[in-house]
Each structure stands twice: as C-alpha cells, then as structure tokens.
C-alpha cells in the first residue's frame, strides 16, 4: 500500500498511466463510444465539413464523416500498429543484444556492427523508403517500423548484458552447469527486464509518431482507414476554413505520445530509485 501511495505521488507516472489507459479504453470501446460508428467507412456528404457542435462533437471531414467517431477507431489502428511494430522490434533486438553481449566471439562484434549500420541513418528515412517500396498497407507500415527500430533494443540489451556478464550470480549459474541459453533467459533477462520495459514504453511513443508521419506522407494504410496522420494530411486542402479538421487528430497524437513518454519516464524513476525525478 505504501509503495502504491508513493507511486501515486509521481505525477508523470500517474498522468502517463491515465492517458495510455484512456487510449486502450477508447480502442476497445470504440463502437459503443462512437456517435456514428458507421462513419469509419460510410459517410454523408450532406454534412461535409461541419464545425464542431452538438451533433458532431469534433466536426466532420471532407466526406461528411464524424471526426470524433473516426478518431476513436483510429485509436485501434494506432495501438495495432505501434504494439505490433514495437513487439517485433523487441523480438529481434533483445535476442540479438543478449547473444552479442553474452558471448565474446566474432559474431558479437558483427551483430553490433549490423545494428550500427541501421542506426547510421535516421530511422524515419529508412522507414519511408521501405514503406514506399512495399506499398501502402498497414502490415507494410508495421514491417517498415520494426525493421528500422530494432537496433535500439539490441544496443541497450547488449550494453546491460555485457556489464552483467562478470557478476557473481552469473558466474555461479555457469559454475552450476547451466547452459548459456538457461543463463541468458533465466538469469540475465530478468535482471535487465526493467530497462527493456522502460525502453519499450518510450519506443511506443516514437513508433506512434513515426507511423503517423508515414500516414501523413500517404505511405500508411489506404483510405478510408481512420489513420490519424492521414486525417491531418487530408485536412490541408480545406484550410483555413476547416480549422477543426487537423486539430483533433493532432491533439490525439500529441496526448498519446506524451502519455507513453511520461509513463516511460515515470517507470524509469520508479524502477531505479537512484535516478530521481528528471535528473
């Protein structure tokens, strides 16, 4: 209880948790929460570009679809893309970092040099190139993002595994006859799990921003998918009259990315008491 109360005092952690939970709830209950669930694919040209009001809380888009409803269903897409892309990146990066960090052979250097190559160019540039070659589809966005973001996990896991390798408890496990796989999975991995979790939380924010950028550039899911970045791109030709069109999805992206970043910062502070508040 005291631990929980201490955590509750951490404003970053609480705010982050609230925002991320709201996103998850919006995604799960998009259908009952939406005023016009049919507006994800359907629309009503009679109500095209209506400003926010009693019927359409956040206004309507160029097709006459309710922006509030589309935003809710966009939350689903955001979660789908960012969770899958991040998960794949973790599944590639973590084993690579573990192997490269645990063993000290020629392939350790090779694996890390490979991740250096991927880090040598800004992630978004590579992701744009891959997404364009593969064509606009959700699974291609996911592929492009996980193919470019995995080195971040490889890097951090490598560094942490390296520093753990000479610890007594690892040596003891090896002396007891544990296989390398067993040591890595049962002894190293639990000790570095907190860093992976923190990195993953912040990585979610980065993935959401990158996915939105791809959507904005027209490389994301094809219309009429309610993708937040694409919604902002669509709004451009109706400015300055339809000011609400870009506002709502932009704020949604801002809040969600902020939520994940705050949650990541908060978790880092909670897990590692040495690094207190923002230092």
């Amino acid at each position, binding site marked *: 209880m005291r631990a929980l109360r201490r955590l509750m005092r951490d404003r970053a952690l609480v705010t982050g948790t609230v925002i991320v939970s709201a996103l998850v709830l919006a995604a799960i209950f998009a259908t009952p929460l939406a005023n016009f669930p049919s507006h994800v694919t359907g629309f009503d040209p009679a109500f095209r570009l209506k400003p926010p009001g009693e019927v359409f809380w956040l206004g309507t888009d160029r097709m006459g679809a309710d922006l509030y409803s589309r935003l809710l269903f966009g939350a689903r897409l955001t979660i789908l893309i960012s969770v899958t892309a991040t998960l794949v990146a973790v599944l590639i990066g973590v084993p690579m970092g573990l192997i490269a960090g645990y063993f000290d052979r020629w392939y350790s250097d090779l694996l890390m*040099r*490979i991740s*250096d*190559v*991927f880090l*040598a*160019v*800004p*992630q*978004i*540039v*590579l992701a*744009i*190139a*891959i997404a*364009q*070659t*593969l064509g606009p589809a959700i699974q291609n966005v996911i592929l492009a993002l996980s193919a470019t973001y995995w080195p971040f996990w490889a890097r951090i896991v490598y560094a942490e595994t390296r520093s753990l390798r000479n610890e007594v408890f690892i040596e003891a496990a090896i002396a007891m006859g544990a296989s390398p796989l067993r040591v890595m999975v049962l002894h190293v991995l639990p000790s570095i799990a907190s860093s992976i979790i923190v990195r993953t939380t912040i990585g979610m*924010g980065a993935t959401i*921003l990158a996915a*939105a*950028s791809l959507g*904005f*550039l027209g490389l994301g899911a094809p219309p009429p998918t309610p993708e937040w*970045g694409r919604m*902002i*791109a669509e*709004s*451009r030709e109706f*400015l*300055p009259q339809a*000011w609400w069109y*870009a*506002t709502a*999805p*932009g704020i949604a*992206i*801002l*809040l969600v*990315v*902020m939520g994940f*970043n*705050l949650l990541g910062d908060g978790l880092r502070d909670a897990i590692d008491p040495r690094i207190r*508040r*923002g*230092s």
Partner: protein
Amino acid sequence: MRLLALALRRFLWMPPTLLGLTLIVFSVSHVIPSDPARVLAGENAPQEQVEALRRKYGLDKPLPQQFVRYVTDVVSGNMGVSLYTQRPVATDLVERLPATFELALFAITLAVLIGLPLGVVSALYRNTWLDHGVRLVTIAGLAMAAFWLAILLQLLFSMQWNLTPVQGRIDGWGPDPITGFYTVDALIRGDIETFLTSLRYLFLPMITLAIPAMATIVRFTRAGVLNVMNSNFVFYQAAMGLPRRVVIWKYILRAALIGTLTQIGLVFGNLLAGAVVVETVFSWPGLGTYAYNSILQSDYNAIMGFTLFTGSVFIGMNLLVDIAQAVLDPRGR
C-alpha cells in the same frame, strides 16, 4: 594518444558502415520490387521499352554484380542518374544541400539560444513552477508531430494573421548564388529587401524544426546541470566558501555544458531526418523534398543517393561528437 586512437578507430569504421548501409538500401530498392525496370517504365509501357531500360541501367545483370558496380561508381563520385530529373544524383544533392543546410542551421541556432538557458534555469530552480512549466513544454515539444505543428503554424501565422508566406523559399528567383544560403547571399549583395523576404520564408519551417530540437537540448542541459550540481566537487567548491554565483558560472556550467555541446551535434543530425517531413509541408526546395519526391517516383538512384548522403552526415556527426567530447572533457585525455 588515446584520443587519436579513438578517432582513428571510429574513422576506420566509417567505410564498412556506409557499405552496409548501401547494401540495405540497395536491397530495399532492388530486391523488394519484383521488377525495377517495370516500375521505371510505368505500368502500361510496352515490353520492349522495359527491356531497353533494363539493359540501359544494367538491371539485366545478376544482383551481386549490380551491387559491386554501384559501389565502385559511388566511390568514384558517381551516384547514377536520377530517373526523374534526368540529371546526376550527386549534382541534384549538391544543388539542394544549401537550402536544407540554411534551414537546419537557423533551426539549431534558435534551439540552442532558447534551449540552453531554459535548461540551465530549469535545473537551478528545480521543482519550482518555472521548472514545471519548462518541463511541460519540453514534454509536449517532443510528443508533437512535426507535420501537425507545421500546419498549425501555417494556419495561424500565414492564413490567420498574414505575417508569413505559407510555403516556398523566396518570391521568384533567389539571389545569385555565392554560398547558396539566400540570407547570406542577399546580405553580401547588400540586398536588404531580399534578406528580409527570405527570413520571412524561413520563419515557420525554422520554428517547426527548432521546437523538438529545443526540447531535446533543454532536457539534456537540465539533466547535465543537475548531475553536476549533485557531484562532490561542487559540494567542495561550496564548502570552500565560494559564492554561489561563482560556483554556478565557473564550475557547474562549464562541466555540464560539455554534455549539451556534444548533444547538439546529434540533434543537428536528426534535423536532417526531420527535414523530410517538414520540407514537404513547406515545399522547401531542399534535400528533404527531393527525397520525398524521389520516393514517390520510385527513383531508386536518388533514394540511395539521399540515404547514403544522410548516413554519411550522420556518421560524420557522431564521429565529431565523440572527438569533441574527448577534447572538451579533460578526464578523457
């Protein structure tokens, strides 16, 4: 000596890293599309035309041979011909470089001028309302989608208040190039009016790029200053009875800003990445727009050229940062 060895080691790793990068980009552009010649010719082009293109660009050779040929070409400064502009990619890149560089330099200057003092103040007045305010702004700055910020700025400054142009770099033609930076060239030629116009065009894209950069700089500066403030040598200086002003200016800032200074190099590298999206929104005629257009046109020579170029700048920046860190931090000597 250690410093020299470090620099040399990093420098020697540059070519293999760039080679690896070339391999990745080459794979993306040559292996994934089933038939690059068909992509080039267009979907409805006759088969003979596709075959002719295939021969012309050596696409009928085995992939490894194509790769080796590309690498040898690049080493001798030939990045191939852009299929869209029909000019050498290297020429295109060099021509568009000043626009991006001018924008990035203005953005990073603004980010440092605002970010550095904010970070220091935020750390010195830690946990006051000032600190909370600054941190809220930086958290929002890092979470904002650049293209959205760009549109909001256009909406307010250009469409609502009519203060700045919506997009572009200059009215009509730019000043005759000397450096390629319109602001500098206009000043050299004494053309104040052109100078002011180009500043007005620079304003919005500069702010869009500067805000996330500024947020990063604030975060690093604040963390750096806090870190130094809690270190033993600062306690020692304070215990010696030195006035707080002296301790802050002479000891804390000097030690803390080394970290920030090196961070600025990395932020600058990231600005090039941000430029792809921001330049597209503002139709800024730089490398970012070039990259975006060539991606849309499946102009793979141009895509590879841009990626390699950005990669080199990025790796070069990292190298400089490492060296700067070693030079500035006396413990590294």
